[in-house]
């Protein structure tokens, strides 16, 4: 039975006021390596069906949602009835709104799901093998991971929604270490299909950065002018994005709450005309152009399934412009309906050049990071985050990298940082390090931050 058939059959079995069915076909393949040898690998197929039933009652509408893997035709009715029972048990939902009415079905609705296999690594694997050989010869060690996933989503509803989306997601990460593992660095790249992955280019960057670290320079903890490469900025902005629930801001319990009530939407966060946005159609970072939610939460609603998504500015011209919304929270907060989108971009208008150009344009001393790691919230009132620099902190002096410092623990708020940008490169696609299990589609500039708070030193190298 095809996933589309399962969706139609489940909708046909529905006996309550509303029904939404989400079928997801997943395929995934990966290679993992350490110390110049492959360690684990895998090729996986998965299939899941989520049935959401809605039930109208005297006090409002309730929803129930169940997800099962590999549902057969004989188990389908039981699944629909269980979702209906869950809806009856749940009580009226605060996020209840009429289900989205479908327009024209996706043109590829009837097509088979897209699938990936180990063949995606056809060119990559031999190139990796060659890099292992060169690393062994140069007394260097490579560690890393390559993964390619394909998820095909079919979304149908009793109100006529028939939407399909194919989402390829891929990444390569390489950690390089010198002999005796005293120096360590990292490169990462997101990809949709591995055709744009050039192992030799990634390896060359590893070699360049390990070279930078041959000279170590003592830098004490404290506030330092610091160049965050796009990957590091992406990790901080993703946390800011995830923390921008309109519902919670409205409830007075986040850094985006206005003291005394309401939200900080409209407030200036940076003197620079910074733009932070999401766009399902952003070239190279395309993502799902409609809401597909298996369960409700502060920033998602099962009732919004099928809602179209369009370019949304979260920060516009340096001011907070929008927060993560459901239809329910948009009404509650009196703000625009701006649901979450699975990519994130930041631009400093007018900024040009690469990360290297930003380094070259630095006068005096600054630190250049590789990436950030273990980012956790310390204080939700200011969105103070802690975390560490990882795999290399380089010392820049008058436009040149002159050596490496130790790693540091930082304590900083991503909101605060937006007001302390003293230089930026052009926006470029990048792979976040900390959050790339969940979020890979980002494009950011490198930015220079005044007085980045390197709170304590870390002996990790």
């Amino acid at each position, binding site marked *: 039975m095809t996933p589309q058939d399962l969706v139609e059959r489940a909708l046909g079995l529905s006996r309550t006021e509303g029904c939404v069915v989400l079928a997801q076909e997943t395929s995934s393949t990966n290679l993992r390596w350490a110390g110049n040898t492959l360690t684990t690998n895998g090729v*996986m197929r998965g299939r899941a069906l989520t049935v959401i039933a809605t039930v109208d009652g005297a006090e409002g509408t309730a929803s129930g949602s169940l997800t099962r893997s590999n549902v057969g035709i004989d188990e389908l009715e039981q699944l629909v009835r269980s979702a209906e029972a869950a809806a009856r048990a749940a009580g009226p939902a605060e996020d209840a709104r009429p289900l989205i009415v479908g327009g024209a079905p996706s043109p590829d609705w009837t097509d088979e799901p897209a699938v990936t296999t180990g063949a995606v690594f056809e060119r990559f694997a031999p190139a990796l093998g060659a890099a292992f050989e060169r690393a062994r010869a140069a007394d260097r060690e490579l560690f890393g991971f390559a993964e390619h996933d394909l998820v095909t989503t079919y979304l149908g509803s009793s109100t006529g929604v028939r939407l399909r989306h194919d989402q390829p997601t891929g990444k390569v990460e390489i950690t390089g270490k010198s002999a005796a593992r005293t120096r360590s660095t990292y490169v990462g790249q997101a990809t949709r299909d591995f055709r744009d992955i050039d192992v030799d280019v990634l390896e060359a960057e590893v070699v360049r950065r390990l070279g930078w670290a041959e000279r170590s320079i003592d830098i004490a903890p404290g506030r330092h002018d610091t160049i965050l490469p796009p990957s590091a900025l992406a990790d901080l902005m993703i946390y800011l994005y995830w923390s921008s629930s309109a519902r919670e801001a409205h409830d007075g319990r986040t850094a985006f709450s206005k003291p005394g009530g309401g939200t900080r939407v409209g407030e200036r966060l940076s003197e620079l005309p910074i733009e932070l946005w999401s766009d399902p159609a952003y070239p190279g970072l395309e993502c799902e152009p409609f809401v597909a939610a298996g369960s409700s939460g502060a920033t998602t609603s099962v009732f919004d399934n099928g809602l179209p998504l369009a370019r949304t500015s979260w920060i516009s011209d340096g001011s907070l412009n929008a927060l993560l919304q459901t239809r329910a929270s948009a009404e509650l907060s009196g703000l625009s309906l701006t649901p979450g989108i699975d990519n994130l971009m930041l631009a400093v208008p007018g900024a040009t050049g690469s990360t290297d150009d930003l380094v070259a344009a630095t006068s005096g001393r600054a630190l250049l990071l590789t990436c950030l790691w273990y980012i956790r919230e*310390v204080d939700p009132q200011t969105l103070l985050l*802690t975390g560490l620099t990882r795999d290399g902190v380089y010392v820049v002096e008058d436009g040149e990298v002159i050596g490496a410092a130790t790693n540091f623990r930082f304590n900083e708020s991503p909101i605060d940082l937006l007001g302390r940008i003293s230089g930026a490169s052009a926006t470029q696609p990048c792979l976040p390090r900390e959050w790339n299990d969940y979020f890979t589609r980002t494009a950011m500039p490198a930015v220079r931050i005044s007085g980045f708070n390197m709170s304590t030193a870390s002996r990790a190298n």
Partner: protein
Amino acid sequence: MTETHDVDPEFLALPHRQLADAALTRCRELGAENADVRVERHGSQLLRLRDGRLEGSSDSQDTGFSVRVVHDGSWGFAAAVDLSPEEAARTAERAVEMARLSRPLSTERVVLSDEPVYADATYVSAYAVDPFTVSEADKVALLAEWSERLLAADGVDHVDASSYAIKEQSFYADLAGTRTTQQRVRIEPEVTVVGIAPNGGGFETMRTLAPPVGRGWEYLLGTGWDWQGELAELPELLRERLLAPSVEAGTYDLVVDPTNLWLTIHESVGHATELDRALGYEANYAGTSFATFDQLGTLRYGSELMHVTGDRTTPHGLSTVGYDDEGVAAQQWDLIKDGVLVGYQLDRSMARLKGFDRSNGCAYADSALHVPVQRMPNVSLQPAANGPSTGELIAGVDDGLYVVGDKSWSIDMQRYNFQFTGQRFYRIRGGRLAGQVKDAAYQATTTDFWGSMKGLGGPQTYLLGGAFNCGKAQPGQVAAVSHGCPAALFQGINILNTVQEAGR
């Protein structure tokens, strides 16, 4: 109530043995040296209430199987969801194909350590009421009643309440003849209250300290935790925190409650004694470890009071199991004794590689679709046999802080530099508690911190804490793990003020 159950008949009715026979036969025909098959069914249910109303629920069940082979010295792994013997044989072929793809890129030959054969073993964890047999309406009603009671209290503006229940069922079969069938249940209830200060004075939260446990729904009804007592205290604890003075940054003696210390153990001892990290297998992701293999038996990890064990046997422990995902029986062993590193967490290939007689049973995969990797057993700090109470530890401190409950956590890629906050920090003056302070974080380097442990509580202070969400490996996997510990005293620890850290 009895805590003894059988494996659910619905799981036993799946065609495990036919799948296993089909897959293992194909693996043998294709010349695999080793092969195993896992059939897994994982159920999970998460209920979240905001201010007494159900905000969202997710209820999922994942069933699938995987075949892992060692073929010509290389690993191969493949997984699928269609539980038919034909698909099992095809999946075995895909696993061998992956091993062949890996061969030219692999320099190490995989060999597994020996383990006795367990021909037909069954294990079911100890719980009284399977949470999946309790109606969702009853569960929501209990959490809603708790929430309403808290919302009615002075100073409580919002209440989050949640219950997260998981049931894992697995069947394992390997070429050597081991066949195990297991069922484990665990649950994580949490309640957080939020108070908003008047006149734009910010907000504070206070969360229950009740740890996640390997128990069933009975846990929320009072078995193993005093929920009524804890919920009754939350509003006053929140009120006190809202009014508390900001901590003065500096150096303090800390008495750390087991509700906070378990997480410090997890991060600075649990992860650092994973042999795969020490060998570099996690270098690209979770990180490595300062506790490298060449220091086994010599590394001074902490003060002589420090005795840390690993186990997969503690009753109600989240990592407790009958057999691991490589068919190794559950064990207990020392990781740190008298303050010295004496052991690691192992799986079968690493045990063989580094010359151990046997794996200590730490292989785990979080689903049928993921390959088993070395994951954390319950890692616990043993109490002092006749050690002091928490009150006695506090009485020995002239000027310090008492830390209760975990909150924020972060540690570096080699497990040196960590920073933790807590649910509450109390000032200690002259051996007595002198009210809460806020905005505190403690920061240290692992070996300095454990070296500063100058007081260790007795068994009466011991508590089994833990987490559902320990992450490791690529693709990312999640594991649940418990950590038992007593209260303990640490001298001369760096305390940060988080408002100053934010530059305010």
